[in-house]
């Protein structure tokens, strides 16, 4: 059937209206003469619609005369007729071809360059370097080799470990940054990166500044990289020799007890915004002051709603800005409901809120030692407030380059002293 309709389309067929007393006679005559008819439908008592190949129309006229039927052409369908019609409308065909060529032509330029995956390296720098390597808005994309640009980026930008360049009309540069390993050999302290109470301290090198059970603040030196000579006996009373001070990279494990506090609250009675599930989407084009709505209603048909607006602008070229903007507005209807909660419900909600905040604050993979909840009462009958406290034990030591000015007893020109020591 599909094959036949395909051939019918390729060869061209007619939809004929047969009028007469006995169209059956017409059908039978066509059958015996070998004229193929299909899709015979009786529209009403007089008219029979028949499809027939265009080339067999001539012989059908004789048959119709013999069957005493009149023939009328309802429609001419298929490729030959289409070509015939289009021959008289050359500009239409030309316009279609021109459109396709134009789209193809415009697609062969780079329009925008996007940078993803950067953390410390600035995307602007990546774009500048890519432009230097040839990838910038406005160039023909066949003239840009993505591999070359990626190689150039990897060579020229120090922090980039790997770059992948996808050259398209909207090009994308994917950057993976290098993880710089910690420097081990320069003198450094170990400081606390969080407030807490030292639970246990293991010094591998350096001088401990705190002992177990001490409270430390963030930034406090826990293990110092300055090793002083042992204090000489009190009888001599000599000041320690500055030259005898050693500077090392402090090493050690600092485990401390940390407290996290998170606050949560819930109203016993409040207005809540619920989505009704109804949403509309408006797509429009903005030109100067005019708005042309392509799809969707003119006004948002809801009383309360939440909006999400996305704008798409044609990128600037030289100093020409296009005053055209594509705007997509998505509106979701919301409904305001007053919710009443019992004490238990409000408490549970407040606790949930606190727990959610806690889950965001707690570092991953840290063992929780203790957790407790405290109800805060401030007299507001409508509000239930809780404070969730979680105790953990974490490794809080991080190394920081030695800052000599903070060190006690270091000479007046600490920089020089340090430099000299590091070099040695």
């Amino acid at each position: 059937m599909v094959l036949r309709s395909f051939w019918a389309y390729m060869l061209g067929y007619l939809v004929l209206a047969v009028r007469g007393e006995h169209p059956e006679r017409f059908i039978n005559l066509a059958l015996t003469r070998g004229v193929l008819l299909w899709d015979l439908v009786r529209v009403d008592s007089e008219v029979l619609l028949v499809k027939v190949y265009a080339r067999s129309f001539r012989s059908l006229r004789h048959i119709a005369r013999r069957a005493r039927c009149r023939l009328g052409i309802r429609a001419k369908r298929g490729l030959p007729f289409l070509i015939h019609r289009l021959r008289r409308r050359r500009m239409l065909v030309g316009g279609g071809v021109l459109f396709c060529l134009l789209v193809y032509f415009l697609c062969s330029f780079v329009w925008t360059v996007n940078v993803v995956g950067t953390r410390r390296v600035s995307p602007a720098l990546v774009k500048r370097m890519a432009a230097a390597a040839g990838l910038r808005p406005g160039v023909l994309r066949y003239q840009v080799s993505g591999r070359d640009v990626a190689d150039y980026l990897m060579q020229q930008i120090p922090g980039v470990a790997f770059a992948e360049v996808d050259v398209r009309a909207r090009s994308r540069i994917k950057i993976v940054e290098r993880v710089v390993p910690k420097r081990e050999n320069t003198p450094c302290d170990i400081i606390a990166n969080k407030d807490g109470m030292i639970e246990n301290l293991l010094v591998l090198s350096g001088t401990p500044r705190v002992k177990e059970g001490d409270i430390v603040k963030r930034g406090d030196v826990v293990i110092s990289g300055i090793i002083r000579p042992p204090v000489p006996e009190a009888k001599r009373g000599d000041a320690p020799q500055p030259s005898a001070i050693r500077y090392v990279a402090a090493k050690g494990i600092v485990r401390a007890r940390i407290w996290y506090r998170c606050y949560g609250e819930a109203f016993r009675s409040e207005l809540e915004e619920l989505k009704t599930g109804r949403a509309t989407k408006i797509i429009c084009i903005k030109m100067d002051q005019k708005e042309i709505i392509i799809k969707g209603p003119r006004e948002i048909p809801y009383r309360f709603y939440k909006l999400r607006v996305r704008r798409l602008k044609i990128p600037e070229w030289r100093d020409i800005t296009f005053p055209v903007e594509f705007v997509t507005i998505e509106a979701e209807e919301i409904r305001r409901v007053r919710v009443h909660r019992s004490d238990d419900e409000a408490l549970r909600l407040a606790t949930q809120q606190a727990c959610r905040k806690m889950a965001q604050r707690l570092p991953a993979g840290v063992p929780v030692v203790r957790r407790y909840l405290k109800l805060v009462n401030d007299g507001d009958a409508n509000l239930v407030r809780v404070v969730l406290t979680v105790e953990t034990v974490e490794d809080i030591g991080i190394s920081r380059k030695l800052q000599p000015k903070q060190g006690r007893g270091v000479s007046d020109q600490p920089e020089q002293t340090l430099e000299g020591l590091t070099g040695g």
Partner: protein
Amino acid sequence: MPRESKKRLEYLLAHYLELPKDLVLDLPRVTIIGDMQVFVENHRGIIEYTPERVRVSTSLGELRIEGAGLALRNIFPEEIGVDGKIRAVALLE
């Protein structure tokens, strides 16, 4: 040979040699697909066609198809296809 006895001989031949009887005896073969389509092979032309009734001439007599919105999908010398809502198919001698 009288016509009846010739027919009988053909029938026996077809029966014993297990030949398809529609070919040997020039009988119509009617295929009905659900209540949507009827195919009639070995027909001898159309007697009547309206959206409610199609009558097809066969060697046995008249085959009557009744239904609603009937359309002749295709007409070949050896096969007629009828589309539409089929209610009844009857063989009238």
